[in-house]
Structure formats: C-alpha cells, structure tokens
C-alpha cells in the first residue's frame, strides 16, 4: 500500500481500515492488502472479470468490514467486481468507497460492479464514499449495483459523493422480498462543470416489502445532475422517495421520481423539490450572528449531512 493510498483511505473509510479483522484494500486495480475474519471471508471471485467475494457468515454479529478502492495516478481504467453474500441472520457493517487521485492532468476511472445477495433476517449497513483528488478534471467513478434483499432483512445503504468527482454514472437496482426494508440515502455535491447521473430502480416484490429512498443534492457553479428514482410496487408494499436538490450559481438538476404499481395494495409516494436556499433560512442564521456565506455553508452542510 503506497503513501497516497494511505492518505485516500483516511478520506473514504478511515485510516484504521487495514487494522480491522476483515478488509480488502484495492490499489490501482490490484489487491494491496486483504484479511478475513472468522465471520467474514474475503476471497477471489470465481467469475468472469475477477474481483472479490465478501461472504458474511450467519455467525457475524455486528462486525465491520472495509472494502475500499483507491486509484493513485492517472491512466488507470479500473473495473472492480465485488459480490457481497450475506447469510441468513447476519448483522454486518460494510464500509466501502472509492478515491481517484491524479497527480497530473490525466484521467483515471473506477467502475465498481457490486452484487448484494442478502439472506433472511439480516441487518446490513453499507456505507460508500466517493471522492476525487488532485488537479484536472479526469476523476471518474461509476457504479453498477444490484441488490437482492431477502425476507425480513434490513439494508441501510448510504452513498456519499461530496468532492472532486468530475463525472459519475451510478445505476442501482434492488429487489426487496417479503418484509424486507431498504433504506437508501444519497448525498451528492457537484461543483464547477462536474456531472452526475444517478438512477435507482427498486422493485418491491414481496408482501410488506418497503423502501425509503432519500436523495439530497447540491449542484453548484455549472455542474449538472440527473437523478432518477423509480419504485415499482409489485405486491402489497410501501415505497417512499424524496429527492431534494439545492441549486447554486448556474447549477442544473433534472430530478425524475417515478412510481409504478401493479398491485392495488402498494402504497407509493414520491416527492421531489429543486430550488435555491431560502432567503429566510439565511436570514434566520444571520440573526444568530453568522455571515451570509457562513449561513449558506451551514445550510448546505446540514442538508447533505
């Protein structure tokens, strides 16, 4: 693991990732370090494209595993396959994410292809943080994620991208089985001429399945975001999506909440709002002694928290 990776790790999953019992640190398309624990086995993925398989055993009861990927220079085109197999009854936290760093003005790309197969009665927290560092506009991070959430399981899925990624294309699909509950939280900040395309397609296939999809984004300068959140209620189920965006400068956001229902007992709600920071919010914080700039920062930080 080189010095840049160590620095990037601190930004995306914390500096102590390699001290944990189960982790896999990917550096410039290769495995830099790996360890498995009694309850979490990380092995080479035996499928086309390589990558890793993270197997969380039923005996896992609250352990955290770290699965970050770092790119430390320009000219890397990384495609990383990760299969997460969570056995029935497991309770686990997965801390993941990607950092793309370029010293020169070249380009580098990381594409994460993730599969989650989560069994019955599981409690899973997945946190993903994406950042780009270094000069230039060639920091690209894409993800393609498929989630199968088993009966009576809960997945808290948080994806954050607040800095330095010049272009991102994220596509996430999920199938929620009986009494499964997916909590999906997205936080997105784009600046300058960055572009972000993010799509969630969630199918509620089991009775009493539910999803709560909350996306909050800020588009500054001349950046652009496209956010699509689709919930498909195929059974008696509950779905809620809330996509709120704040515009600053000449930022632009296209927000498309979609609800589809083929079951009369599916209760689906969507909300979407795009606007600038309210003048009254700024004024309120100014009456507390903050400057206008400080007030805006607090409002945005809070919004994306």
């Amino acid at each position, binding site marked *: 693991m080189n010095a840049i990776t160590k620095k990037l790790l601190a930004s995306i999953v914390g500096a102590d990732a390699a001290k944990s019992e189960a982790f896999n640190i990917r550096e410039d398309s290769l495995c830099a370090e790996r360890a498995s624990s009694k309850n979490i086995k990380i092995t080479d993925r035996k499928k086309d494209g390589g990558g890793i398989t993270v197997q969380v055993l039923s005996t896992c009861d609250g352990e955290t595993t770290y699965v970050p990927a770092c790119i430390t220079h320009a000219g890397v085109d990384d495609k990383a396959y990760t299969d997460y197999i969570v056995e029935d009854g497991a309770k686990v936290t997965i801390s993941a994410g990607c950092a793309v760093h370029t010293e020169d003005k070249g380009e580098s790309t990381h594409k994460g292809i993730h599969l989650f197969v989560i069994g019955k009665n599981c409690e899973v927290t997945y946190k993903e943080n994406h950042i780009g560092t270094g000069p230039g506009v060639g920091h690209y991070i894409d993800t393609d994620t498929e989630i199968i959430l088993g009966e009576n399981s809960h997945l808290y899925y948080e994806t954050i991208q607040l800095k330095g990624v010049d272009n991102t294309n994220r596509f996430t699909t999920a199938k929620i089985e009986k009494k499964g509950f997916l909590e999906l939280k997205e936080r997105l900040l784009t600046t300058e001429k960055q572009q972000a395309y993010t799509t969630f397609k969630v199918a509620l296939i089991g009775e009493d399945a539910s999803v709560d999809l909350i996306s909050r984004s800020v588009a500054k300068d001349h950046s652009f975001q496209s956010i699509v959140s689709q919930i498909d209620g195929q059974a008696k189920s509950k779905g809620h999506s809330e996509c709120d965006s704040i515009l600053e400068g000449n930022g632009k956001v296209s927000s498309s909440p979609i609800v589809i229902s083929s079951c009369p007992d599916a209760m689906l709600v969507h909300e979407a709002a795009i606007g600038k920071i309210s003048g009254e919010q700024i*004024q*309120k914080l*100014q*009456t507390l*002694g903050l*400057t206008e700039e400080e007030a805006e920062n607090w*409002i945005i930080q809070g*919004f994306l928290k």
Partner: protein
Amino acid sequence: MMLETKNLCYTVGKTKILKDINLTFEPGKIYALTGPNGGGKTSLAKMLAATAPSSSGFIFLDGEDITKLGTTERAKKGMAYGFQVPVRFKGLTVRDLLQLASGGSADDKELSICLTKVGLCAKEYLNRGVDASLSGGEIKRIEIASVLARKNCNILIFDEPEAGIDIWSFSGLLEVFATLKKENKTIIVISHQERILDQADRIIVLNKGIVTKNGTREETLQAIKEKNENKNASLLCDDCLVKEVF
C-alpha cells in the same frame, strides 16, 4: 442597551407600511407591541433586526447609528430576533441551531436549559431535525429557545411568541421574560395576548403603520378599557375593536 428609532419609515411600492416611527426602548423593561393585523408590528421588528430594510429614518443602539448595519452586524452587537413564522431546515438538528445561536460555545447542559425554559425536554429534542417533523408549537418553542441561547444579547425581540404554545409552557415563557427583565435586558414582544400585555412596562399600539398609543401598561390598558367599556368585548383580542379605539 437602549434602542431608538427616529422617523423610521417602510414603504413597499407606493404603500407606506410604517410612517415616522419614533420609539425608545430602554433596558430592564418589557415593551409590548400590539395592534390590528397589518398594522406594521412585524415590519417594525424586521427593520430593527435588519431582516427588512427601512426606507428612511434612523435606528440607534446606545446612541450609535446602526441604520446601515446588516442583520449579522446587528446580531453581533447584541440584538436577537425570534421570527413570527419560524424557519425549518432540512438536516440541521435542534442542537446545531442552538449551538449556532450560542456562538458554538454552549455545552449540552446549557442548551438543555434553553429548551427547558420553553417547556421542551432536551433529551427528546436536541437530536431532532428543525424540519417538517416538528409541529407548529414545537418549532415555535425552538425558535424562542434559539433567542434564549444567544449569549451577550441585550436586545431581544419576540414576534408573537405565544403562538401555538400551550398554557403551561406559556406560564414558563412569562417567567422567562421576567428573568430577562431582571437581567436588565431590553425586551420587545409583539403580542395580542392579554397576559403578555399585563406583564409589559409599556404598551405600544401600531395601527396602519402609525404609533397610535405609546404609554405605560396602566395608561394604555385604561385607555382601551374606557373606549371599550360600552362594547362589552375583549378589545385586546379583537383587531377591529383595536382599530376603532386607536
């Protein structure tokens, strides 16, 4: 600190919202601003806090002309303002808001005291979002708490603090005003509530943008009583009657 207005005016388009307001607010006193809806009370409060610009006239703080100072500068000079309609923030917690109000120096114990003063349990509320999950009464109390959390503030302006607050918490609010008065703060309260008017040292009536009465509590209430005695109704709760009298 003493706050004064001289010929303060506020005009929107061709409509004069406030006309030549000349008032003095002294430390250690409670001032109740009352009068009919649309009389200019909130506009005056906003101009004092600089969340709305005055069209002409002057505002002095301890003799210093602060007319051209913005909201932040006036806040830093010790002025605090509780909004009539509190603002909601997605993502900010009650703790965040009160911490900002305190200048970042308050610990949880101090923040808890502020919440207790407005009848809220700190344990239950500090981590709540200042968002749509709060009821009208809850957000109003948090708005008042954000004023109470300010440190080194000597001018405190409350715009209809009683709105949405239950009777038990309201009694607590009156105690808060009494304590602030003892601390020699200058307290300006916009209200139609009789119990607040009863607590005021002076009552100022604003109607159609003009100060129609500015006197001690006894003088003003007596004037109201005399002019209203044949109407057999509570003048203070009836905007129309207030309008007729003043």
